[in-house]
């Protein structure tokens, strides 16, 4: 209905690309997302530094939270998926987990309401790092040729099936893994904030309807927006956890002994 579009356009929506650039001499190098990533990094560094300033045997609350985050990434992810050798990767996984947690939570913080991971660049770089990491770890442990052979040829495959299986395994292991890792995180964050937009703006559009009995439905739409905000918080934590779980699973696959 035309009334809805009028209401929505008055509030200055949809934003154009230029709304994300910050004004200043550094146009167009610094955008809203650059500042958000800097804020996320600063928050993490400051939190972990101040939590461990004077560590005590009976931990203070901040120290306990920091230890829980690191302990979770170390015990429940690194050691459980990779085994004893996983301790080497625990710092990287813990850092990645806290960075993804903070940037994903940005999607429900008021006034920010968008996660930097909703642009494909940031998950793409993180997935690229994980990709290089599991390939490098595998190649360093087994040697490049043996590692490739070990990944591409599953044990017990009859020889005539190999021309079919090897290209598929190559595609699945070396090409699709980083791609889906990045795309999963990106699509979850992108879809999350689009859904919140749909219900919030839908409430405004319904409110502007010409029939009086449709107007109260806007409250239902806004209640759904609130429920979906809680759901978005759950998805934020879950996607951070799944990213590091899959990274450690790929590393475990690279480090596995030959059959």
């Amino acid at each position, binding site marked *: 209905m035309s009334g809805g579009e009028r209401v929505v356009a008055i509030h200055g929506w949809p934003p154009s690309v230029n709304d994300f650039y910050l004004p200043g001499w550094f146009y167009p190098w610094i955008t809203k997302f650059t500042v958000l990533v800097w804020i996320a990094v600063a928050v993490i560094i400051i939190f972990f530094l101040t939590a461990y300033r004077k560590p005590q045997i009976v931990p203070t609350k901040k120290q306990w939270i920091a230890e829980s985050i690191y302990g979770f990434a170390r015990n429940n992810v690194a050691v459980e998926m990779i085994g004893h050798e996983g301790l080497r990767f625990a710092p990287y996984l813990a850092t990645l987990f806290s960075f993804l947690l903070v940037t994903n939570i940005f999607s429900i913080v008021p006034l920010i309401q968008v996660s930097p991971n909703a642009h494909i660049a940031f998950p793409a770089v993180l997935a690229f790092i994980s990709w290089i990491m599991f390939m490098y770890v595998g190649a360093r442990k087994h040697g490049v040729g043996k590692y490739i052979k070990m990944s591409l040829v599953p044990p017990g495959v009859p020889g005539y099936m190999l021309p079919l299986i090897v290209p598929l395994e190559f595609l699945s292991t070396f090409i699709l893994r980083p791609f*889906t890792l990045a795309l*999963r995180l990106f*699509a*979850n964050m*992108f*879809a999350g904030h689009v859904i919140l937009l749909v219900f919030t703006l839908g409430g405004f559009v319904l409110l502007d309807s010409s029939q009086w009995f449709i107007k109260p439905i806007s409250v239902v739409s806004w209640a759904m927006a609130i429920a979906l905000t809680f759901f978005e918080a759950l998805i934020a934590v879950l996607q951070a956890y799944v990213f590091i779980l899959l990274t450690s699973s790929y590393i475990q696959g690279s480090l596995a002994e030959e059959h």
Partner: protein
Amino acid sequence: MQNLAAVVGSLSAVGYGLAAIGPGIGVGIIFAAYIQSSARQPESAGFNRANLFLGMAVVEALALLGIAFGFVFK
């Protein structure tokens, strides 16, 4: 020759609707497997929770690819 029957509107929305069938069934199967395995052997529930989240995220990736590409293929 005139059109005898036509569907007008957003084809990408229809495409997303079809793309959501598979992951919907997949997520249902994963959770059903977890519930059944926890019912048969409750001690394995904690051990399997990691696999539950892993499976759910991998399957939902396809559903979300559908949403994202619905906008790309406009």
